[in-house]
Each structure stands twice: as C-alpha cells, then as structure tokens.
C-alpha cells in the first residue's frame, strides 16, 4: 500500500474509533456518522451483488445496521475497524434473505459471480478499488458486451434496463407486441450473459443453466 494511502487509512480508523467510542456510549449522532461511512460500500459491494434487487438490498442494509446498533456496545476494537464485522453481518443477512425468499415470494438472484475480478471483498480495506474506478471498469465492460449482441437484443436491453423505460414503451419502440417484447428481452439477457462471461474472465455461476433457481444463485 502506498504511504499516503496507509496514512489515510490510519486517519480514517482513528476517526472511526472515536465515533465508535461515542456510539458505544449511546451517542446516536455518532452511530449515524458510522452508518454514513459504511452503508454505501456495504450496499454496493456486499448486498446488491448478492441479492440482485435494490429493494431487497435496502431491507438487508437496514437489518444489518439494526443488528450493528444492538451489538455495538459489545464490539471489541479491531485493527481493520468496523468494516469486516459489518461485512460479515451483511453477508449473513443476504444469506438469510435468500433462505426465506421462497416463502416471501421475493425475486432474488445473485450476480456476484458474474462480477468476477471486478468484485472485491468489502472487508479488505487495503485492496479496495476506488468506487469510481470500479464503476468505470464495469461500465467499460458493459459497453464492450452490448455491441456483440444483435441490434434488436441490444436495443431491448438499452430501452428496458439502461433507459429504464416501461414495457409498453419498449414494445412500442421495437414495434412488437408486449408479450413478444418480454420474450425478446429474456433472450437478449441470456445472450448478454453468455457474452459477458465469454468476454471477460468472470467466474461463470456454477451450472449457469437457465431455470437453475436459488440453490445455485444463493451465495
């Protein structure tokens, strides 16, 4: 680790220790500061890739910090600070959510395996990529994969998932019926996945078969 990065990390850990001490004494503003320090990373690097759904990841984030708030008075200081502890709570929460997804009817699908080397363990502070750099790499890979699809598939994905248009607008833009658009998007996403795995050195999901549900996708 470069000396400046090491200094920054030490300074961050010192600030964090001070906040933890205050939060352990019941200071809720200090807990709020710790939340703002760690929540974005946990959401983007642990929960969303494991759950595949923003709403599920937000619920898991709330549960993670609820447990953290309850258990913080008993937390013992660690050389790497709070992050590894919070990451473990979050990962367990994601696993629990997959376990109950069948009962809750929630749509969950981990894409953590598809991120491959672009994924990083959120509890390794020294290896952390800058968030902007990480997103730039992902975006570059997306931009490299989309042109490898047929124009129709590419357009279906862009309309529905990049531009976030509703189904009706997408079907109209492609001049197809609604049901036909749904099938086009399904096929487009499967083609996208094949190209994503083929292009990069992403780790294919075990089995990777279409219809393979929860057991294979569950972290």
């Amino acid at each position: 680790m470069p000396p400046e990065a090491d200094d920054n990390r030490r300074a961050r850990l010192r600030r964090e220790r001070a906040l933890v001490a205050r939060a352990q004494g019941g200071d809720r503003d200090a807990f709020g500061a710790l939340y703002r320090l760690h929540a974005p990373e946990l959401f983007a690097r642990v929960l969303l890739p494991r759950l595949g759904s923003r709403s599920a990841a937000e619920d898991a984030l709330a549960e993670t910090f609820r447990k953290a708030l309850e258990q913080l008075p008993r937390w013992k200081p660690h050389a790497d600070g709070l992050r590894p502890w919070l990451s473990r709570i979050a990962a367990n929460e994601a696993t629990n959510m997959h376990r109950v997804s069948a009962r809750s009817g929630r749509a969950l699908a981990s894409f953590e395996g598809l991120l491959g080397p672009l994924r990083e363990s959120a509890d390794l502070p020294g290896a952390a990529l800058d968030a902007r750099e990480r997103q730039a790499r992902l975006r570059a890979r997306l931009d490299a994969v989309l042109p490898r699809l047929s124009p129709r598939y590419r357009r279906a994905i862009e309309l529905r998932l990049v531009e976030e248009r509703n189904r009706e607008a997408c079907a109209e833009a492609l001049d197809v019926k609604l049901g036909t658009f749904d099938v086009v998007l399904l096929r487009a996403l499967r083609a996208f996945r094949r190209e994503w795995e083929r292009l990069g050195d992403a780790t294919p999901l075990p089995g990777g078969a279409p219809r393979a549900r929860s057991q294979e996708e569950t972290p």
Partner: protein
Amino acid sequence: MSDDDESLPPTADELREAAALAAALDRSHGAPELPVDAFAAAGVVRYARDGGALEDAAAERILDDVLAAVPGPAPAAERPWWKRPWVLLLPTGVGIAAAGAAILLTLRPGVPGGDLPRPSVALLRAQAEAASGGSSDALDAELTRYRATLHASLEERYRP
C-alpha cells in the same frame, strides 16, 4: 453474433419465463418460473450503469428506520430534590461530624495554658525594638522576668 435463436418461435417455457421476468423487473417479486440467469444478467446491467449507488434519500430513510427500531438508552428520570443522593447524605455527614467532635472533646486531655500569665507591655515593646534592629538587652531582661513568672505559674498548677 450469438443470437441464433432470435427468429425462433418462443416455447411454452420461454413464454412463462418471459412473463415472470417482466413481473420481477417491475415489482421485484418473483414467480416460481423466474429465470434467475436472465434476472441476474439484468442486475449486472443495472449495476454496471450506476455502480450500485445508494441514493441519499434511501440512505437517510433506512437510518431513520434503524434508529426508530432500536430504542436508545432511557434518559435518567428527574428526581425530586428530597430524593437526590446529596440530600440523603447530608444528615448522615452532619451526624458523623458531630459524633467525631464529641469524641474528641471527651477524650482530649486538658491543655494547660488557658490562664498562663500574659506577657507584659514592656516585653512586647522590647521584642518590637529588637525586631527593628535595636538593642536586645531590654528583651533579654524582660524574657528572664517573664520566664520566672511563667515557671512560678506552672509550678503552682502542677503542684501535687
């Protein structure tokens, strides 16, 4: 190009999966037919687009929910003044001090000197003169006289 299947008519399974995928993308709820491979691919596309950023409004709403769900330590209740610790300790402290004073007064041996002869004005003048740099002869004479008076007084007091 890897889209050889583009022109093929959809199978019955595909139709069910496509409908389940469409519903899941809209509502985040899945049916048993949900094709998780395609749903995960959709997740990757969205993730690559925004990096999984947590929106500020959502972050603050979650924090509020967390703080509301876990009650904080209860604030100490305000006690009336007569129930505060210092009020309860005050009489005890006064009692202990009074008892100590009584014991001391009872056990303290009599100290002589309450009625010792007072130094004369001449002795005080001689002390003042010696202290200001003058002769100490007068002081010596006065002290000799005072000691004699003092010894006589003590002898009188402690005579068996």
